[in-house]
């Protein structure tokens, strides 16, 4: 009898390059890039910056702003995910959830109150929850509800709008209903694992393999693994968001924003493009508050935290493209229906 368990196949299938050596190469490349940028900044004449067109400068500014805004929440989400996967006792979360499916999803949609991270931080956390035994549908419910149903988002929305036009209530109820609707739909999926990317399916398959290492070591490894999965997606998503913002005229969106129907879709498009975190999006849109109709603001505040360019890029690390298209269609339609209802009734 061996004293140690055999190393899982996927851990061994790296050929001659170990994760440590890959990490060292990555770190070296990163340091080299930073040094290169510092050297360019110090040695290049200032006029070089002026050679960039306004559009290019805007692209970098907008993309970097999304990264800067999201990065702390991604890191926080990864840390919480590690906490759930490594530090919470096995089965702790599942034991404390109701057995009834509807009640279970309702409780899961409220987990954001305990884990208040922005939507980008929820992706690694949702991945951790799946690895800890949550179903795919339930993890979607958490993923979509938590950015809205958390105290930071609720407080900032209240600070921005108070009780005006039912914006706060519509946001909370809309987020709750849509997240539970998604969970209800996907609870009927015959093969939930097929909703996940093959790479993440592999991670799930080995989630319960016990690695002979301390919790701290496992946490560090997991941090490395999650950041290497999340950060490229964040950078790509932010770059796309920046690119679209440069390409799409905001003036056009603002013009459309005063039409009771088109305003809803205009602000959903704006939310999709700007990819702003749910914790601060209320203050962002408050600046447009006098221009846009309340239903459009509600659609912005509900759709944005669930689906945007950056989130799709991050969620693509976990879900298949087909699944994300379905999610986007349902969330988009539900947000539009909510926004149009507010415009028609409020």
């Amino acid at each position: 009898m061996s004293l140690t368990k055999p190393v899982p196949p996927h851990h061994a299938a790296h050929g001659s390059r170990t994760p440590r050596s890959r990490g060292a190469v990555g770190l070296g490349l990163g340091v080299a890039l930073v040094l290169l940028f510092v050297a360019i900044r110090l040695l290049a004449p200032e006029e070089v910056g002026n050679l960039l067109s306004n559009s290019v400068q805007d692209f970098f500014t907008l993309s970097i702003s999304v990264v800067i805004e999201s990065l702390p929440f991604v890191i926080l989400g990864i840390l919480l995910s590690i906490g759930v996967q490594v530090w919470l006792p096995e089965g702790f979360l599942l034991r404390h959830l109701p057995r009834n499916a509807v009640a279970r999803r309702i409780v899961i949609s409220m987990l954001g109150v305990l884990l208040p991270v922005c939507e980008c931080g929820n992706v690694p956390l949702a991945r951790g929850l799946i690895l800890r035994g949550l179903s795919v549908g339930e993890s979607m419910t958490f993923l979509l509800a938590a950015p809205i149903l958390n105290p930071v988002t609720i407080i900032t929305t209240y600070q921005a709008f108070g009780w005006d036009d039912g914006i706060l209530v519509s946001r909370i109820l809309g987020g709750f209903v849509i997240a539970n609707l998604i969970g209800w739909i996907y609870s009927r999926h015959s093969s939930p694992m097929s909703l996940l990317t093959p790479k993440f399916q592999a991670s799930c398959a080995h989630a319960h393999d016990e690695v002979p290492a301390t919790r701290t070591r496992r946490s560090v490894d997991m941090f490395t693994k999650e950041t290497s999965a999340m950060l490229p997606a964040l950078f790509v998503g932010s770059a796309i968001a920046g690119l679209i913002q440069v390409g799409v005229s905001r003036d056009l969106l603002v013009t459309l924003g005063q039409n009771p129907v088109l305003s809803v879709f205009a602000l959903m498009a704006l939310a999709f493009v700007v990819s702003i975190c749910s914790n601060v999006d209320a203050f962002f849109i408050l600046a447009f508050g006098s221009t846009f109709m309340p239903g459009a603001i509600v659609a912005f505040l509900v759709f944005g935290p669930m689906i945007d360019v950056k989130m799709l890029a991050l969620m693509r690390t976990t879900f298949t493209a087909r699944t994300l298209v379905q999610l986007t269609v349902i969330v988009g339609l539900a947000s539009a229906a909510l926004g149009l209802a507010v415009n028609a009734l409020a």
Partner: protein
Amino acid sequence: MSSESPQSPRSPQSPRVRVRDAFARRLLGTIVVLAVIAGGFAFASVVQGPRLSAAKIDAQRSTRLAGQQLVIEVNQPVASFDADEISVEPEASVSAVADDRLITVTFDEPLDYASEYTVRVPGVVGAFQGVPATLEYTFETPDEQVYSLVRRSLDGEPDLIQRKSFTEPGGEIVFTAPRIQEFAHAGDVLAAVTIDDAGANELFVAGVEQDEPQEIALPMDAVVRDLEASTTNPLIGYLVSTPPVDGARAQDSALYIADLTGAAGGPPKPVAGLDGEPIKVASWSFVPGTTAVVVQDFEQSVFLVDAFGSAPVTPLGVHSEVRGFVPGTSRLVVADPDRGSMIDLTDGTTTTVDLPVPSLGDSDYPGRLTMTGDDRYVLSVVMVVVQPDGSTSIASRLAQVDATSTTDVFTPASEGSIIREYCISPNGRYAAVTTSDAQGRPDGYPGLPGYTESTMSVVDLSSGAVEFSQSGGFSDWCSS
């Protein structure tokens, strides 16, 4: 694995396929339902007209100043609306303009107290919806407390200041002192000039709800007169004169303005004229809605002065008499031997006032008049009444005169009562009329003497109805 196996994914009977079908049905069904709901609400949004999103008005100021605005926010830009068809209940004259999503309704005159106003703006067409809609907004104006001074020192009791409002007929006593010369109030802060045992003036300020009044320091043996309060700002003003020493006075009718909030910092300072020296003020008044005052010196020169020196002193010419402002406006009425004029302090224009001639009887004698609008005024009338035995007596009444008619609005209820004084409310809609009956006699106060047995009645100038009465006189409307 056999194709007929019940577990085969290809079998239409397999549980997995059924579940997959259930998922597909749920997914597609949800999409269809959501699309229908969204389409329904989109259609409803398009076919309904624009709606009122919010509305805002400073109701407190609307009863004190003309030109107050109700700003109606519409849920989309306004393409057009029927500005001429706007209706207001109770009736009020308005004008309106639209700018983007805002319709601004301006009230030409101050509004009534304790009233519920409903404004309807018809024919509002949005930029994106062709269906016209009528926007309606209702708001309430605040109640008005009317104060009066009851002098009882001749009967051995302390004088008191009491107040009563349009909706609270009970009334309450808000200040007492052995002898009170005059008072004014700015909001719920009361200022009172009292007379001590030695005959010297003291000036107190007290919150109506507070017990302990605060004394404002005055120069030794100073005489205070013409205490007034702003109707819109927490400001009071008063004239201070000190006794002559070697033929010269340290303070000679100097106007002090006190900020009751304490925001101005430091003790009140006298208002200075063009030369930077304190003006010797013969008469003065707050400009409604501002921190400015209009003062007239003893050479009859009139100046516009900011109480806190934030604007340069502006000369307004030399006039025989300053008759105050048209209620709620910045239009100052001045009188000269050859004509009366109205100076609009907002733009400096002066117009000659052509007063409508009152329709009076042969034995009627016009008394003091007070403008309540650009072309109407309230006039006190003294009448000589010939009794059946051939003797004569004096009676009085209050009339409102406009371009078309002279209407009696108040006549003392009891024979022998005489109108001693009247003052117009800040909104120009009411008069506080002080009468004293046949037994009334001068109260002997050195400053601002009055009559005993006085009663103050608040009269609606539009109907002549007496809203309420209370004992005393010297309404606070006379000191604002």
